[in-house]
């Protein structure tokens, strides 16, 4: 919630209450106030179609309320009738009668001149992986596979560092152009890519298994399932260029540089 917006709306409601505003002003204020709340009151924006549905409900509720008794209906229709019949309001009435069609026409103009946008297709960012892939003739079960070099972290620290260092070399010779020097997905070609390259520093790879990364790296965009949109991402199928060990080393480096750990297998899954 954006506290400032909420407070502002509540203050307006409070002022109207204290000044004993007419029912028409009340109805209008509630309608506008709720719209402002829905549109601007939430930190994560609500889609406009959802706002439209909510405002439809709000409109019906307000109409139901103001017509629920003879007295309330009179409170609302009275000022409107006076506005339309009394001579002193005639200039304002004329202006309103002209302004509403003019605004509607302007809206039509804006709607018809929306800048052209190529068709957009939705895609799944982390689609489900197959259970098994073949990399350089080696079958790899993605449910059970683990980084070839991960076990060295405890048993042989020096060798482990060497593999991380190899991964660093692989990364800066191959991946840096898109994923960037600090791994945040802002490499030198990023202005020409859509979707943009993965940011490894935002924590998302901590939610993935290292075998998932091996799948994404070895098969790249062309190996994505239908829902992943293989035709748009520029992620190469690295098996064409790198050895399997080099890919595991690069994965080692990604987690090491960003200080993250691959998602642990759940207890039941352990081999």
């Amino acid at each position, binding site marked *: 919630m954006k506290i400032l917006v909420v407070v502002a709306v509540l203050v307006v409601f409070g002022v109207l209450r204290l000044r004993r505003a007419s029912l028409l002003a009340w109805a209008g204020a509630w309608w506008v106030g709720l719209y402002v709340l829905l549109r601007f009151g939430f930190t994560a924006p609500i889609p406009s179609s959802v706002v439209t549905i909510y405002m439809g409900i709000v409109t019906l509720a307000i109409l139901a309320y103001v017509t629920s008794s003879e007295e309330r209906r009179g409170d609302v229709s009275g000022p409107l009738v006076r506005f339309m019949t009394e001579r002193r309001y005639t200039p304002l009435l004329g202006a309103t009668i002209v302004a509403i069609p003019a605004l509607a026409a302007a809206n039509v103009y804006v709607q018809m001149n929306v800048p052209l946008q190529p068709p957009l297709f939705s895609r799944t960012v982390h689609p489900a992986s197959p259970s098994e892939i073949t990399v350089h003739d080696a079958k790899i079960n993605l449910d059970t596979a683990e980084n070839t070099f991960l076990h060295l972290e405890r048993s042989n620290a020096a060798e482990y560092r060497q593999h991380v260092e190899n991964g660093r070399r692989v990364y800066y010779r191959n991946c840096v152009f898109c994923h960037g020097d600090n791994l945040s997905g802002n490499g030198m070609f990023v202005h020409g890519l859509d979707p943009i390259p993965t940011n490894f520093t935002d924590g998302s790879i901590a939610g993935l298994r290292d075998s998932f990364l091996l799948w994404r790296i070895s098969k790249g965009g062309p190996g994505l399932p239908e829902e992943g949109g293989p035709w748009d991402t520029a992620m*190469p199928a690295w098996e064409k260029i790198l050895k399997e060990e080099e890919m595991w080393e690069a994965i080692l480096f990604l987690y090491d540089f960003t200080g993250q750990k691959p998602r642990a297998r759940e207890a039941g899954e352990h081999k």
Partner: protein
Amino acid sequence: MTPRLFTSGCAVVLIGVVWAMPMRSVKAQGPYVGTDAQRESGKQLYGKYCAQCHGDKGDGEGYATPHLYPRPRNFTTGKFKVRTTPNGALPTHQDLVNIIRRGMPYTSMPAWPDLTDQEVANLAYYITTFSPDFTNPERAPKPVELPSAPAATSATIEQGKKLYEETGCTKCHGTLGRGDGASAPTLKDDFDHPIRAADLTQSWTFRGGATREDIFRTMSTGFNGTPMPAFVDGLSPEQRWAITDYIASLSGSEGPGYTNLVVAKYVKEPIDMAKGAASFAAAPVAHLPIVGQIMEPGRAFHPPTTSLSVQAIYDDTSIATLVRWHDRTAEKTGQNGPSLPVAPEEEEEGGGAAEAAGGSPFGDAEVAPGAAQPAEKDPFAEAEAPAVTSEFSDAVAIQIPSETPATARKPYFIFGDAENSVDLWFFDLAQAAPVQFTGKGSADVAPKDPTDVTGVASYANGEWSVIFKRPLRPASAAPFSPGEFLPIAFSVWDGFSRERGSRRGLTLWYSIYVEPQNVPSAVGPMIRTALSILAIELILVGWVRWRYGSRARGELGDPSRPAATHA
């Protein structure tokens, strides 16, 4: 203290400070290079963020170096491009901080906005440890005077244009500033690596920054270790500002303004390719970024082409697409093709390094002797591009799906895939006309027969203009239908950089929209909407007045309510 006494006290202190300032720099042992702790902290950061390109020893030989062009800076030489100090001098601490903070656009040196000021400062201090020059008192850097900017006017731009030609800027940067001067193909830096003169029409790619102040600084102090000289002594500040204004005016806009859509406009006259680019005046220009083909083996890590400008028109029978891009030299001899082989070891040489390795048609032997030592050579010396035959010609290709995609699925963006093929309109610019290929992946590109694509190409002042024309609805290819979008992608090969086959610059999929002949006008719907709402209003007001008018006149109460309750 009386005000007078206070003022004179201040004046004495001020004079003292001013007098003491030069004394301090005389006493200093070279430029200030930070404390041991600061340099140690910088060393940690350097190991994590910088060493992979600049090398553990600061010699510019890191893991990434074989694939990078321009090469990462070798800090051991004490030569730095972007400085506020005279040509040949060391940069100031602030110069180093600025370049780390801002990076160098369109190179592999990124900006580092997320490091703290202290971290950047420590890095700058650590970098000074690679060269003994930084501790040499005689080499303490003194910034040159860079007076602030006068207003740019059409007069200063005009004066700058004249000075640009008189000063000899055209020799490297070309008549229209596209980096296509006569000497451009021969330029090398002090490390004997080929170097490209900046394309002055694309300020967003300027290594030292794109603001007027940046251009003025580069003009004044030059780029150490490159053929770009310093003009701080050769030209007055007014003259340098005038040239700066002219260069700033060449780019037209502040940014590249990349888009994702090519809009094809209908033209009544049948398209006449002999008219060239003039036919396309009504069509909007789509500026599309080029990236290196680094996905398939035979990679190009730094294509010299950074962007394409695309326009499209169609008449009753055909569609024509104009593709323009900047190229320093036109390679109109030799050959090119979408599947010419590239040896795996050539990848290691990087884009520009292949030229250095003697792979370029302009090998060392053919370069004028003076050009190899740019630091000493007269930058204004005449140098003519040697007339040699290139092995690989320039080329360009447009790619569209072979069939209009029925679903969201498009062919793979690099020459299609086995299930979804693409049509390639390929123009080897050593040939007179384009040909067509069918692509089912980079390894499966076959000639398509018959070719129904025609084209013309021309090169002038550092720019290729290539027009492709094809029937709107051929028998065996995806049709261009008014009101519809079709995926479109581009590839461009620079023969000078030995680009061919998979080694090229390319775009991802973009869209081409064939704008209907008659774009519906908004006026009709606007009038209809306005009139219908007006009618409803008038009926409503009329009804209300008829129903309540007689009772409301002169009486404030609601007619439907008894007056008593209102009071």
